[in-house]
C-alpha cells in the first residue's frame, strides 16, 4: 500500500482523539443516554475522566497489551467507554452481537481467546456462563447492570462500576503504567476487531488498525462536512462496523454527540426526542417506518387522508428537485411550503427526522419508491456502499447526485476496479489489516497490491461514474437455458411491497424460477382487519387463500416489469409459496444483519424447493425452530403452492 502520513497533532489513536476533545471542547456534550426518563449527559471532559478510571480499573484486573476484551450489549455509553478504555491500555475491544445465542458467541469468544468479557446485564452474563466450559481463555466477566446478579459467584464476576471505582482509587499508582501503555499504541496497531456477520460459513475476525478507522472517519466527515454540532442516535448493533465508525470514529474525530436510547423498544420515541442531524439506518428501518405511517393513515379520518395523499403527490412531483436545488416554479414552491406546514413537517417530526441533515442507508438495496418518499419530504437520504473490510466506505453518493439505483461514486481515497467476472474490487486507507488467525482467507480476499474483493458483482455507469451493484457475485448464476439469474434483484422488487417482508428466489440451473415469500405481519394483519379476514396465528394468516391472492397479484406485477428487462426476463416467478414461519437469525436462516443465508435455506427447506419445482399443489412440512432462549421445537404445516402468471419475453433491444 502507498505510504501515508500520520495526521497532524499526533492524533494517531482513538484515546489521543479523546484527549484532544477533552482539551479543546471539554464542556461540550459527548454522550447522552436516557435513563429514569431523563436524558443524562456527559461532556467530553467527563467522558475522559470516566474512560481513564475504567482504563485504570482494567489495569487493576490485569488486562495486558494485546488482550481481547469482548463487549456484549446494546448501545450504552458505558460500553463505548469500555472500548476506548481497553484501547487506552493497549487491549483490543471485540464487540459482539448481543442477540446472538450462546453457541454463536462461543465460537467468537473462543476464536479470539478473549480473557475478559464485558456484558451488559444478567441475560448476557448467563449466556457467557453457559458456554464458560468451552472457553479456556476466559478469566473475568464484568457486568454493567447489577440487577439480579447478587446471588452469582463473584470470584470471577465484577460490576463495571466497582472496577471503575477501583481504578479511581488507584489513580496515582497506575499513572506511569497508563503512560507506558499509551506508548505501545500507534497508527498501525489494532484499533478494534469486528466479526463479520458471515453470510457464508463461520464469522471472520476483521482486524482494523487505528489508521483504518481514523482515516475513514476523517475523510467521510470531510465529505459530508460533519462537525461538533451534529448529533446522532446510536441504536445499531455495536458489533457492526458502521456503528463503530459513527459512534467512535466520527464521533471522536469531529466531537459530535452520540445519544443512546433508553431501551431497544423505545428507540423510535427516543429518536423523536433527540432529533438527530446525522442518521443512519438499513433499508429495513425505512421500510418499517413507512409501513407504520401508511397503516396509521389508513386508519385516519377522511379529511386527513385526503390532505395526506394530496400533498404527498405534490411532494413526489417537486420535493426531490427542491432538495437537489433544481429549478422549480414559484407556485410549486409555495404549495410545497404549505405542505411542509400541514403534512411533511408533522410527519417528519413523528418519524424523528425533522433535523436530519444527512441520512444514509446501506447494507441492502432500498426500494426506489421508499427512497423517493423520504427524499420528497425533504430528508436528504443518500446511499452508500461499504463493508467491514473497508472500514465501511467504498462508494458514497454526493449531495445533488443521489439516485435510487446506484450506490454512488468512490469515497474519498478509495480506488475501484471491476474484475473480469464482474466482481467489484477496491483499495483504500480503510482496507483491513487481516482476518484474525485466518491467513488463507486474508490471502484470498486481499491481494499483494492491497486490492480487496467485495464478493459483489456490479459495473460503473459510464455516463455518471456511479457504481451499480447487481447482486452477490456468487449468487448470480445461470438458469438451465443460459439466461441470467440474479435473485437479489427480483427479491428486492418483491420486498418493496409492504406486505412482503422477505422473499427468496430459486432458479439457478433450473428452467423456471420459483420463490418463498414471508409476509409482513403488521401490514398483512392490518389489511386482514380491514377486510374481515380472521386468523389466530401467523401461520394461519400466511396460509389464508385471500392473502395468497394478494401476494400472487404482487408477484404478477413484478413478473410484468421483469418482462420489460432484456437481461433479467428469465427470472419471472412461475410458482411460489408463503412460508409458515418468519425466516429468523436464531434458526440460522438469516445473518444477524438480516441477510438471507441461501445455503442453509437450500438445505433446510429442500422438500419445499423440490415441491416448487414439481407439479404438486400442496405439501406437508415440519420445520425445526429455535426459541429466543435457545430451546428448540418444531412446527408443521401444510402449504399451498400457487402458480403465477408470467409474461412473454420482449424482443431484445427493441
Amino acid at each position, binding site marked *: 500500500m502507498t505510504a501515508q502520513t500520520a495526521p497532524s497533532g499526533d492524533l494517531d489513536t482513538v484515546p489521543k482523539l479523546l484527549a484532544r476533545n477533552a482539551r479543546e471542547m471539554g464542556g461540550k456534550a459527548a454522550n447522552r443516554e436516557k*435513563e*429514569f*426518563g*431523563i436524558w443524562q449527559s456527559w461532556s467530553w471532559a467527563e467522558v475522559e475522566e470516566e474512560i481513564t478510571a475504567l482504563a485504570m480499573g482494567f489495569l487493576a484486573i490485569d488486562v495486558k497489551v494485546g488482550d481481547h476484551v469482548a463487549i456484549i450489549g446494546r448501545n450504552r455509553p458505558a460500553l463505548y467507554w469500555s472500548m476506548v478504555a481497553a484501547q487506552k491500555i493497549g487491549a483490543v475491544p471485540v464487540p459482539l452481537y448481543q442477540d446472538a445465542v450462546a453457541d454463536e458467541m462461543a465460537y467468537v469468544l473462543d476464536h479470539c481467546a478473549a480473557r475478559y468479557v464485558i456484558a451488559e446485564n444478567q441475560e448476557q452474563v448467563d449466556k457467557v456462563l453457559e458456554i464458560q466450559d468451552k472457553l479456556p481463555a476466559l478469566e473475568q466477566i464484568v457486568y454493567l447492570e447489577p*440487577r*439480579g446478579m*447478587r*446471588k452469582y459467584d463473584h470470584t470471577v464476576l465484577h460490576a463495571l462500576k466497582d472496577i471503575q471505582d477501583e481504578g479511581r482509587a488507584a489513580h496515582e499508582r497506575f499513572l506511569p503504567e497508563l503512560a507506558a501503555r499509551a506508548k505501545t499504541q500507534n497508527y498501525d496497531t489494532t484499533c478494534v476487531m469486528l466479526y463479520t456477520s458471515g453470510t457464508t460459513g463461520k464469522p471472520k475476525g476483521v482486524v482494523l488498525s487505528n489508521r483504518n478507522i481514523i482515516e475513514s472517519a476523517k475523510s467521510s466527515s470531510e465529505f459530508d462536512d460533519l462537525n461538533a454540532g451534529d448529533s446522532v442516535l446510536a441504536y445499531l448493533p455495536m458489533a457492526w462496523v458502521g456503528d463503530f465508525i459513527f459512534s467512535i470514529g466520527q464521533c471522536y474525530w469531529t466531537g459530535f454527540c452520540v445519544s443512546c436510547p*433508553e*431501551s431497544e*423498544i*423505545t428507540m423510535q*420515541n427516543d429518536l423523536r426526542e433527540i432529533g438527530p442531524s446525522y442518521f443512519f439506518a438499513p433499508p429495513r428501518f425505512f421500510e418499517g417506518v413507512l409501513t407504520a405511517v401508511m397503516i396509521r393513515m389508513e386508519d385516519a379520518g377522511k379529511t386527513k387522508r385526503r390532505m395526506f395523499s394530496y400533498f404527498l403527490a405534490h411532494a413526489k412531483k417537486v420535493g426531490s428537485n427542491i432538495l437537489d436545488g433544481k429549478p422549480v416554479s414559484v407556485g410549486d414552491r409555495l404549495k410545497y411550503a404549505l405542505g411542509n406546514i400541514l403534512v411533511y413537517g408533522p410527519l417528519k417530526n413523528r418519524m424523528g427526522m425533522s433535523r436530519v441533515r444527512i441520512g444514509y442507508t446501506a447494507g441492502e438495496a432500498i426500494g426506489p419508491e421508499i427512497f423517493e418518499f423520504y427524499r420528497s419530504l425533504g430528508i436528504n437520504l443518500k446511499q452508500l456502499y461499504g463493508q467491514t473490510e473497508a472500514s465501511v466506505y467504498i462508494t458514497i453518493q454526493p449531495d445533488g447526485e443521489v439516485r435510487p439505483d446506484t450506490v454512488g461514486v468512490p469515497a474519498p481515497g478509495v480506488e475501484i476496479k471491476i474484475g473480469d467476472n464482474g466482481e467489484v474490487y477496491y483499495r483504500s486507507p480503510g482496507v483491513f489489516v487481516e482476518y484474525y488467525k485466518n491467513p488463507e482467507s486474508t490471502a484470498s480476499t486481499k491481494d499483494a497490491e492491497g486490492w480487496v474483493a467485495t464478493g459483489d458483482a456490479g459495473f460503473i455507469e459510464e455516463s455518471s461514474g456511479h457504481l451499480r451493484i447487481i447482486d452477490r457475485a456468487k449468487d448470480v448464476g445461470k438458469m438451465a437455458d443460459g439466461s441470467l439469474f440474479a435473485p437479489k434483484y427480483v427479491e428486492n422488487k418483491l420486498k418493496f411491497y409492504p406486505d412482503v417482508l422477505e422473499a427468496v428466489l430459486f432458479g439457478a440451473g433450473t428452467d423456471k424460477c420459483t420463490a418463498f415469500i414471508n409476509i409482513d405481519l403488521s401490514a398483512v394483519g392490518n389489511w386482514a382487519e380491514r377486510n374481515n379476514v380472521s386468523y389466530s396465528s401467523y401461520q394461519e394468516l400466511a396460509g389464508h387463500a385471500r392473502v395468497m391472492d394478494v401476494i400472487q397479484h404482487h408477484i404478477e406485477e413484478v413478473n410484468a416489469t421483469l418482462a420489460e428487462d432484456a437481461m433479467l426476463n428469465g427470472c419471472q416467478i412461475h410458482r411460489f409459496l408463503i412460508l409458515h414461519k418468519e425466516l429468523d437469525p436464531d434458526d440460522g436462516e438469516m445473518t444477524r444483519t438480516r441477510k438471507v443465508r441461501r445455503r442453509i435455506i437450500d438445505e433446510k427447506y429442500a422438500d419445499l424447493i423440490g415441491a416448487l419445482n414439481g407439479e404438486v399443489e400442496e405439501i406437508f412440512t415440519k420445520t425445526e425452530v429455535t426459541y429466543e432462549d435457545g430451546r428448540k421445537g418444531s412446527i408443521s404445516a401444510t402449504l399451498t403452492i400457487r402458480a403465477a402468471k408470467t409474461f412473454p419475453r420482449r424482443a431484445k433491444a427493441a
Partner: protein
Amino acid sequence: MSFDQTTTTADGRTIGGPVMEVKNITLRFGGVTAIKDISFDILEGEIRAIIGPNGAGKTSMLNVINGFYHAQEGQITFRGETRSRMRPYHAAVSGISRTFQNVALFSGMSTLDNIMAGRALKMNKGFIWQMLRYGPAMNEEIKHRRAVEEIIDFLELEHIRHTPVGQLPYGLQKRVELGRALAAEPSLLLLDEPMAGMNVEEKEDMSRYILDVNDQFGTTITLIEHDMGVVMDIADRVVVLDYGKKIADGTPSEVQRNQAVIDAYLGVPS
C-alpha cells in the same frame, strides 16, 4: 420474637424471624364459613405461597391480612403489633401493599400516573400546594417521580410510560399493577394470582420480577397462585388451604408429598 431464627437459603438470601403471625383466624359471611381457624406465619424476606383448589379461601385470607375483610375470630400480629381489626389504610401505612386477582388499575391513566398513584401515601404536601404544583410541591413531585422512574426501569416499562393502561395487553397491566404496589415501598407484598391468564413466557418474566423484587429490595412476599409449577419454583414455604381449612404447611417438596394435599387436588377415591 427471638433473634436466633435467621437462616440462609441455598441461593444466598437471608430469611429472618416472623414478620407476621396469623392466629386462629375464622371468617364468616352470614352462615358461610369462608376461613376456619387458620394459623400460619410469614418470615422476614421469604416468598410465602398460599395455594389451594378453587373456593379454598385464599383470596379471603389475603383480604383479611390487608384489612379488607374483618375476621370474626383470631388475631394478626404484624411487626409486633397485634390487632383483630384493621382498615386497609392502616395496612398500607404500616407497609403492606397488594395487587388484585382482576387487575384494578385506573385504565384511563398512563402507566406513569398509575404507579405515581401508588406513592400517594408518601406525599405530604397539602391539596392546595399540589394543585399549584409549585415550590415544595414541585420538589416533592420530582422526588417521587424519581422513585417511580426507578420502578419503571426495574420492571422494564419504559416503552409504555405514557400509554394509557387500558390499551395495554393483560400481561403488561399485571406488571404495571406490581409496579404500583412496589411504589409504596412495602415491607410485605401481597400478590393475588400474579400470573393468572398469562402465557408461559409472561409467567417466566413475572416470576423473574418477583424473585428480583425479593432479592433486590428484600421485600417479603406472600402470593396466591394456581400454577403449581411456578409455586414450586419460586416459593420458600407453602400453605395449603382446602374448604377454608389449612391442610398443610411446609417447603414445596414437603407439601407436594403430603397425602392430604394430593387428595384435595386430585380428589379422594371413594
